[in-house]
């Protein structure tokens, strides 16, 4: 990629230069101590070479070991504690969620990265983000453990099956950067790579514009409609389930009396294993959607619930008023969705529209003809389509089908 031999990777995030400064300090400590030890050894070896006639009588003060031992224990201890505090402070700060981030969903599987944007577009092995805005990833794996690693951002987070992990970064430099899978995940681990493309806000907006699909929240809401969620959780439903408006981020009381903040993990469990965390005051009648929804679909529903996190008043239903609650997206002019034509949930859960939609979303571009997860068929898998072109054409074809 670069003509010259690199010594430092690109530094393209708000944390990169800070991490580099920390690393440089650690390098200096390593250098000073190892060169110091090497020089001491070299000097002693020459000075006290066995044929040299030098004074070898130890002074009394050198024989009083414990003061010496204490000194050379305490000095490193002080240095260590300084480095620990510095690192701990950064680590804690990097784990505090940023203000008003762009939310992005990541689903990892052997051996590809599936990216879903808040405003709808999906990519494979590529992530387009604007410069100068925090981006927060909510990640989950379909199979084994992977790890989302962007060296230029100095950031990495393992992606686990069955559980969300999150990470965030804010790009500070335009360009295209490596995305690696850092946790060994099987045959094509070293091909589970992609690109992070940092764009100017205008370019990014234009790119999003060129990906004419419904926003993730909108998809999520239609999915809830078609899956029958709103029959119980909706405004016109029979109210067996708790209301969903303003739910995300709130504290709720469970049957066992414990309080729980509604976060990504809570929502995921509520959908896939509803019986494990029953809300106080509701009947345990919700069926599990485990195996019925893909990880991407669960994340779409999550996006919808986040989009109505601040809404109050009537519970979100499939009615037209819902549209006003959706976040502003460049796709407000996208084709009318199932919800906006006023179709009610009791008029048939799965319209042709929706089944078509969920089919396109789950099957077409996201699961290319891959050998199943067990490590057979090693090199049959071609190099991943890491370029913007191929992924956007993937999106286009999805649109055509739609």
């Amino acid at each position, binding site marked *: 990629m670069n003509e010259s031999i690199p010594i430092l990777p690109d530094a393209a995030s708000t944390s990169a230069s800070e991490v580099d400064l920390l690393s440089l300090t650690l390098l200096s400590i390593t250098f000073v101590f190892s060169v110091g*030890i090497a020089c001491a050894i070299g000097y002693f070896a020459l000075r006290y070479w066995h044929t040299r006639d030098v004074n070898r009588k130890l002074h009394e003060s050198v024989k009083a070991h414990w003061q010496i031992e204490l000194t050379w224990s305490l000095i490193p201890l002080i240095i260590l504690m300084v480095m620990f505090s510095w690192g701990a402070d950064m680590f804690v700060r990097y784990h505090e969620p940023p203000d008003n981030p762009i939310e992005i969903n990541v689903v990892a599987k052997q051996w590809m990265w599936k990216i879903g944007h808040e405003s709808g577009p999906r990519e494979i092995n590529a992530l387009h983000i604007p410069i100068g805005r925090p981006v927060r990833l909510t990640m989950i794996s379909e199979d084994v453990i992977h790890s989302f690693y962007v060296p230029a951002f100095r950031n990495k987070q393992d992606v686990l099956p069955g559980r969300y992990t999150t990470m965030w970064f804010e790009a500070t430099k335009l360009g295209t950067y490596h995305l690696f899978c850092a946790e060994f995940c099987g045959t094509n681990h070293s091909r589970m790579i992609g690109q992070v493309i940092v764009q100017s806000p205008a370019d990014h907006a234009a790119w999003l514009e060129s990906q004419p699909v419904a926003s993730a929240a909108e998809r999520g809401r239609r999915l809830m409609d078609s899956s029958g969620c709103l029959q119980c959780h909706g405004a016109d439903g029979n109210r067996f389930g708790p209301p969903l408006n303003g739910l995300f981020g709130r504290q709720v009381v469970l049957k066992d009396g414990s309080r729980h903040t509604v976060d990504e993990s809570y929502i995921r469990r509520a959908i896939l294993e509803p019986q494990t965390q029953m809300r106080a005051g509701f009947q345990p009648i919700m069926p599990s959607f485990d195996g019925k929804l893909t990880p991407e679909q669960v994340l779409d529903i999550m996006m919808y619930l986040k989009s109505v996190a601040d809404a109050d008043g009537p519970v979100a239903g499939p009615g037209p008023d819902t549209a006003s609650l959706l976040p502003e997206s460049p796709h407000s002019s996208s084709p009318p969705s199932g919800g906006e034509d006023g179709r009610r949930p009791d008029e048939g859960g799965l319209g042709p529209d929706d089944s078509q939609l969920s089919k396109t979303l789950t099957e077409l571009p996201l699961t290319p003809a891959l050998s199943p997860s067990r490590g057979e068929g090693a090199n049959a898998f071609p190099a991943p389509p890491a370029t913007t072109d191929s992924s956007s054409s993937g999106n286009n074809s999805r649109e055509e089908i739609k």
Partner: protein
Amino acid sequence: MTESSNNYLNDGSTIRSWLLTTDHKRIAILYMVSITFFFLFGGAAAVLIRLELLTPEGDMMRADTYNKLFSLHGIIMVFFFLIPSIPSVLGNFLIPIMIGARDMAFPKLNLISWYIFMTGGLFSLITILVGGVDTGWTFYTPYSSTYANTYVLLAAAGIFIAGFSSILTGLNFIVTIHLLRAPGMHWFRLPLFVWTHYATSLIFVLGTPVLAVTLALLGVERILGVGIFDPALGGDPLLFQHLFWFYSHPAVYIMILPGMGVVSELMACFSRKPIFGYGFVAMAGLGIAVLSFLVWGHHMFVSGQSVYAGLVFSFLSMLVAIPSAVKVFNWTATMYKGTIFLKTPMLYALGFIGLFTVGGLTGISLATLPFDVHVHDTYFIVAHFHYIMVGSAVMAYLGGIHFWWPKITGRIYSEWWGRVSALVVFFGFNLAFFPQFVLGYLGNPRRYHQYPGEFQVFHIMSSLGATILGLGYLLPLCYLTWSLKYGRRASDNPWHAKGLEWETSSPPPTHNFVTTPIVNEPPYNYGQPHREEEIGEGEPAKHHVEKAEVES
């Protein structure tokens, strides 16, 4: 003294007298031959890996083959070379002699340990023959428990079995050190080699069962489909990592602590001085062993464990650096006002200190949270642990083998070739692994069959260094073997060293001592030698000596 015809080597020369021996010295030789064999096996895998990585494209072998090679390299080197290396060879040979005992506390158990070890090794070799395993030596779930389509169980069974060899060896060492010390051999007259093996044995006994349980659980999930680690079955994948590193981090200290013991002996002998701060060095070893059980979470800073856990493990990992630093400072201070001889073992010992310092300091860097987040699972980690496990541990092993070679075999090797090998190994090692620090910081993930082209120059340097390192390792194999037949006879104490092992003949008689020694001086009681004194030359070959009867 060298005329003593009755020694452990010529006390029976049949295959049976070797395979059914309960003599700790012969068992040590059995271990030496076996782990050398495993080392060559693991080394061959490393050669293929470094060849593949010469080019960015995965063009020499298939991805699956590559994955199997690094798994094989890791499993063989960790479980069948590094962990048994110094304890099972040098520890077995020296501990009873160093404390003035006739044998280990449980000689038959000692032999059984070797058979268990070989059974485990056999399983690993069968694994390779039938098709290999591709999980890496870390066996992370749910890849290993559900998704890997290779011989995971067979490989895990080999490690499971070999673990019992570790446990029994550790048990044997602890009991032997407690009960069989010669009159006058107080705890604080023990050589540091014995102290560090005592610390290592504690880890063997306390840590290895956890690994056995972990691998057993892995087997239960893989065979019976019981959900322990795979979330699809209701398990927790991080549980495996916690259990695995609870053993495998202390296992790193199993590899390095005995090396520290060897280096302590060498520094004292070739500085002709007592080790500086003997008591502190001994206690630092125990301190490392205890702390080693409290730092496993530093392998999991980006795994999804809580931020709070990350902070605690970062803090505790920093603390391990203190006893390690104390040891390095004390070794260096031992040379102060000493009488320095740079013989082959001393060169290896100094190489150990240099590489251990770099490995340890980069370990401090890795304990610093944001730094680890960036370089975790990259070549930086690979470089770091090779500095500790290869740079340090293998340097110490080779240093120890050279130092005690005259005692073990009764022969003197070529000093010139010895020094050459020490220098070649040191140079080759640094060329092989220093570029990997840079590679890691640049972001090249480990276990990558193919990699982006901008990393190639560092991979070429690394492969070149690995070639030199490989040659450096082959040298001792040649000249040490050569010395068995053509080397000059060694005197009982060619280094004029202190310690009970140098008071018996070379090679020692079957029961180590003709009369039980009585210890009445502190350890490393080196007097000031004449400055003209040359050590290590052995006895001039005045008369034709009969060939030593060393069986393969």
